[in-house]
């Protein structure tokens, strides 16, 4: 088989083409949003947010039945936004330490989700789809939701770029400039929540965190400004998706896992060869 044929064969199938478009969009979107997750040390919160969506998806699953995958998206979106606002409120009101509070919400919601799904016969198969995604089953309708909601998220990040930058780098400056810091904090949480909801079908909630932080962190190692970190991260995220889908197609590996493993490989390369922070550079100097 020639290289061209090897490269083009998978995408002769419409479901593979849809998977490609969806995962490239999700890979790019997650890296841009994930840049803030990385820089603000919100990795645990991002992970918790993804897992807390499960009970919402479960309720949607019970209400609308197995066939209706569109309904599930709205349930996931609603739950993600509600949880993000709740977590934002908890971490503001600190009687308990923030990460402990997030951990309790996260574990509790996740357990509730499993409990709900376990009432349905044959639940294990469906649970696996929620946990690890099923990008090969993405419909055109799903692709359009990613375009619409992902586009809205990116537009807001572009519009409030300088405000998000200040709130993330120097919250005190934000106060002296009289910026509405809580507004931007909550807005960022909601943007992460929307990103999680639209990305769920591709990598699943179990590997969501990897998509948020791995390409963004690789980009962090390779760049020196936030805007270029987002751009390089988006390219790496999209590239991981493409390469992951090939691995999935030719070696029969679960697509979500394959995408994440490729992004980890990119991360290791960045860690070794980063011009300013890399391991090799340190060895040479």
């Amino acid at each position, binding site marked *: 088989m020639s290289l061209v044929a090897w490269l083009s064969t998978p995408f002769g199938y419409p479901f593979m083409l849809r998977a490609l478009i969806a995962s490239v969009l999700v890979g790019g979107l997650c890296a841009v949003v994930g840049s803030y997750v990385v820089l603000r040390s919100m990795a645990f919160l991002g992970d918790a947010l993804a897992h807390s969506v499960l009970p919402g998806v479960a309720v949607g699953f019970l209400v609308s039945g197995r066939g209706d995958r569109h309904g599930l998206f709205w349930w996931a979106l609603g739950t993600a936004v509600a949880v993000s606002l709740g977590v934002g409120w908890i971490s503001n009101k600190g009687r308990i330490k923030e990460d402990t509070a997030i951990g309790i919400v996260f574990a509790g919601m996740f357990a509730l989700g499993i409990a709900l799904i376990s009432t349905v016969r044959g639940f294990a198969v469906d649970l696996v789809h929620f946990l690890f995604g099923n990008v090969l089953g993405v419909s055109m309708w799903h692709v359009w939701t990613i375009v619409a909601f992902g586009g809205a998220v990116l537009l807001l990040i572009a519009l409030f770029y300088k*405000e998000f930058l200040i709130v993330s*780098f120097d919250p005190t400056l934000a106060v002296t400039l*009289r910026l509405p810091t809580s507004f931007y904090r909550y807005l960022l949480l909601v943007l992460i929540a929307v990103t999680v909801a639209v990305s769920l079908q591709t990598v699943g909630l179990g590997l969501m965190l990897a998509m948020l932080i791995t390409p963004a962190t690789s980009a962090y190692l390779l760049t*020196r400004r936030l805007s270029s970190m987002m751009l390089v991260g988006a390219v790496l995220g999209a590239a991981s998706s493409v390469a992951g889908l090939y691995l999935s197609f030719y070696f029969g590996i679960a697509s979500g896992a394959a995408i994440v493993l490729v992004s980890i490989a990119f991360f290791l390369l960045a860690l070794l060869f980063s011009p300013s922070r890399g391991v090799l550079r340190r060895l040479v100097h």
Partner: protein
Amino acid sequence: MHQTDAPALLVRDLTVSFKARPALSKVSFELRRGQKLAVAGPNGAGKSTLLKALVGLLPPSRGSIEIHGHAPQGHICIAYVPQRTDVDWRFPVTVRDVVMMGRTGRLGPLRRPGIADQQTVSQALRSVNLEALAGHPIHELSGGQQQRMFIARAIAQEAEIVLMDEPFAGLDVHSRDEVLAILDGLHDVTLLVALHDLSIAASHFDRVLLLNQNAVGFGTPSEVFTPDTLKSAYGSCLRMVKTDEGLLVVHDTSCTGET
């Protein structure tokens, strides 16, 4: 919105408490535009607390703060230079990016910086002698350069009141003098600097506020640095001695009744 005849900063009976324990108690002082105030005192005296209350980060539990005759809310003419240890130096921004952040208050939401903003930033960088490092990531800066970058940001912000928390901590003598020379050159700016080194307070500032939870002394350095006020601030016997090389702080070991 500024009243021109009002003092730049008027603080009356300011008390700030954490969990019902006062960190700062009944502090009053007044500064005119362009005056430079050193806020001195031992560790835990409330120096940082005072600065944070003035910025609006900590709410006063009693007393009042007036900036140019008005309450501090709504003013964007205050710049706060954080302690160097409070900054994430690995954040992916360049020196120029950080200085540009100062323009955000003037720009307002949804507007991008224009040519005039770029020029203001370049000029601010020139005035602290950092143009050569404008494009460098902030983790490459030395301690003195870090302080100068934040001063440039305050200039770009067009701040009229600049608060600095321990800007000289951990700086070598050369970098310290560079920062001091820049601060001496800020003429229209009312400056409040929390610091440890009483000789710097005496030689570069026209007002000193000596804190030990309450205001132990406020006035010119020679009014404040008397053996009695120093003793009530620091507990032990500190003395300022005038020498040919400036003022020296001497710990008087022969002093009786030392705590």
